[in-house]
């Protein structure tokens, strides 16, 4: 497994595990009900990381995920720049810069979470800060993932990317955009009842994380570091010598 592939797996496994464990601990503590939140919307993702000890796992896992996401975006930049025209693509740099800024917002969003935010009526400013930074993270990440998909389509031949790999990314990116629009409509028209917002939140987080994982197959032959490239060359040289 290459280093970028490990990062892609980590970027999806770490948030799933962290949120899953936090949710389990919160259910065990009686702070959130047991359900399938993707369909029933019985709890927000945030609610799983408010009460201790779930909050410990939640903050450790998700702040680390944000930094892993930054490394993932760095891999994206290096990968998309490793081929194609010789001139640089400044918009790829801007795209990655925006995505990194979004990940920093996630760090800020998670850092303020904890039992000290209860009751919510006495900590409105903190909740508002958490909500705004989390929404900005989701929105910016979704837009960056869509733009990345566009660039992949442009470089499909040069990077030798299979069509279905781009399609899966397009579906994930389009679904994220639809969910964000649904969220805006739900909030604007007062339809945010019966767990609608919660359901959207769970799906948005899942799709955004799954997008990270889709690069696992794209990066089968992509070596991020020169150290990796040398190791791969040594392995292939040994293979040829044995043949």
């Amino acid at each position: 497994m290459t280093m970028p592939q490990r990062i892609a797996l980590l970027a999806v496994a770490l948030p799933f595990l962290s949120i899953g464990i936090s949710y389990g601990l919160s259910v065990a503590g009686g702070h959130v009900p047991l359900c399938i939140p993707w369909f029933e919307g019985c709890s927000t993702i945030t609610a799983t990381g408010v009460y201790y000890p779930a909050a410990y796992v939640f903050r450790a896992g998700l702040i680390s995920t944000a930094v892993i996401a930054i490394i993932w975006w760095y891999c994206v930049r290096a990968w998309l720049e490793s081929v194609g025209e010789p001139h640089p693509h400044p918009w790829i740099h801007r795209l990655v810069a925006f995505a990194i800024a979004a990940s920093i917002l996630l760090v800020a969003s998670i850092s303020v979470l904890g039992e000290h935010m209860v009751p919510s009526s006495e900590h409105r400013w903190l909740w508002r800060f958490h909500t705004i930074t989390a929404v900005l993270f989701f929105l910016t990440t979704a837009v960056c993932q869509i733009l990345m998909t566009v660039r992949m389509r442009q470089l499909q031949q040069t990077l030798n990317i299979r069509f279905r790999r781009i399609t899966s990314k397009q579906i994930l990116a389009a679904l994220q955009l639809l969910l964000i629009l649904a969220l805006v409509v739900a909030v604007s028209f007062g339809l945010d009842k019966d767990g609608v917002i919660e359901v959207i939140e769970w799906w948005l987080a899942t799709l955004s994380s799954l997008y990270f994982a889709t690069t696992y197959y794209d990066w089968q032959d992509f070596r991020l570091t020169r150290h990796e490239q040398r190791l791969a060359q040594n392995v292939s040289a040994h293979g040829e010598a044995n043949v």
Partner: protein
Amino acid sequence: MTLPQRIARTSFWLSHGTFWLTLLLGMYLGTTDICVPYLTGCTSITATGIPDPQAYIFRGGLISACVLFAVWWYCMQAWLFEIAPQRPIWTVRYMVSAGIISSVCLIIATAVLRPDKDALPWTVHTVFAALFFLISLAVQTRVTYWLKYLQKRGVDIGSSLRQKFILVYAQWFFLLVMVVLQLTDAGDAWKNIVEWWMALLIGLYYLSSAQDWRYFRLTETD
């Protein structure tokens, strides 16, 4: 500036910038006395990250820095493989694993901090923070001796070896002092001084590699 240099510098400035910012904020908000903890031991690193709102900056900054520490260890391994004429011995080859384990220990120690001190799991915090210090020191020492070994064989290892030895020996000295303080049940002020210095020395070790990695490229696009 190369990518490894950025990682070395960010590892130091993010972790210590977090410590100093939370300390200053604590002084401003009146939760900490105005002092220089490196000299007076008026507060511990942990204490600066317990009350809100300093805790928000503390956990955000330090947990992020921990992931960077792991990346720093990867850079160090890649650099040693690049400059060494022979394959490094196994303790050096597995330093990334050890570096990741030490980073995870510090992540756990930081994540369990909470404003209500009575409910804080102190044992978990103390054990994992101590493990971070010990594992980091062990791996830093091993790498420093490996660099000396390479230098003896004429390999260009940069200019920070002397600094690295000073940093490592100073850490061992402070560790010894800490053991004595624990055995004699000395006051918290002395333990706090040792803690601040140990953290500074570990951070400076990460920073010291920036000068060696001036021509070291981690990636092709770097």
